[in-house]
């Protein structure tokens, strides 16, 4: 939506610096970038994924683990594939869930084609509010995000955050962070399930 966008790595570094013992569910571009910043037992890299469903994966974990806080990432393309999930999440009212949409306006992993939202006039924050999210904010400027991230993550949940980020460019290919079975076992051990 905005012409001004922040660098993805910088946006994620803000979260890395604030993160304590939250569960972090990454997917698509964040599954590529987050492991460069974090190697935490409660990181769950949802790749290979069913594109568009990282939010409800985070919802399931949040409902199962109400004493923990979950941060789930989605891309804007993924969010467009599952707009109904905003209603599903909001209806479940998980106070411990934050859904963060990294909005770069393109399908990065396929080479940078524009999303329908980028061509049109979609307001993800308005959609989340209309679906019933307790709080929803958009950030386009890294300094603003850095200044208000802690406050945003402390708002009533479920929380919805759009971070308008620059495309990463040619470094868009996803690499596997390792066998899924091993990652699930490690994650479940960390959860104690």
């Amino acid at each position, binding site marked *: 939506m905005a012409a001004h966008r922040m660098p993805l790595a910088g946006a994620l570094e803000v979260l890395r610096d604030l993160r304590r013992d939250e569960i972090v569910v990454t997917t698509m571009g964040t599954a590529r970038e987050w492991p460069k910043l974090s190697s935490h037992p409660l990181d769950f890299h949802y790749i290979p*994924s069913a594109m568009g469903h990282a939010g*409800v*994966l985070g919802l*399931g*974990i949040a409902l*199962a683990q109400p004493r923990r806080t979950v941060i789930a990432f989605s891309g804007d393309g993924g969010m467009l594939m599952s707009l*109904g999930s905003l209603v599903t999440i909001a209806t479940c009212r998980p106070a411990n869930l934050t859904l963060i949409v990294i909005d770069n306006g393109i399908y990065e992993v396929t080479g940078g084609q524009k999303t329908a939202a980028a061509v049109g006039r979609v307001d993800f924050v308005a959609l989340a509010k209309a679906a019933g999210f307790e709080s929803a904010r958009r950030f386009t400027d890294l300094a603003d995000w850095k200044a208000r991230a802690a406050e945003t993550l402390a708002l009533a949940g479920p929380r919805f955050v759009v971070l308008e980020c620059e495309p990463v460019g040619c470094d868009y290919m996803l690499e596997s962070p390792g066998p899924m079975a091993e990652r*699930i076992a490690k994650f479940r051990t960390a*959860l104690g399930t």
Partner: protein
Amino acid sequence: MFTGQQIAATLAELGVTHVVWLPDSALGPWEEALEASRALTLVRVCREGEAWVLAAGLHLGGMTPVVMIQCTGLFESGDALRNVLFDLKLPLFAMIGYRSFLVEGSADTARKYTEPILRTWGLDYVLIDAPEKAPLLAEHFRKCRAAGRPGVVLLAEGQM
């Protein structure tokens, strides 16, 4: 074939914690009983693909969910099913309404393609098409859970 109370009691006895559902007209009447159950939490999704992945999250978090959808939702949710059952290899269990199975001579394509698709996915399923087969639900659930693999119960229905 089942009342809502029967389903809720059976699922509770099996240790199911969450029913993730998008009902059809045959499953829908169970809503009140599922919602009233102290053992179960009913989670409503907007599209069936959400159901599989939401159930996956619950499972990873230590819960025991069941996906409850119609066969048309099975068709819709193929990619999510593929991902959580075969990429993540999670042993999720689903109860799927089998539209038009009980309609003799039905040309409903939902009826025609349900079992071929389950066979294509290689999913272990049983069909409950008569009241005396009701115990298959618990038997199949226990069998799949013991084997640590996904499972499906098809619930024969009339017209949509």
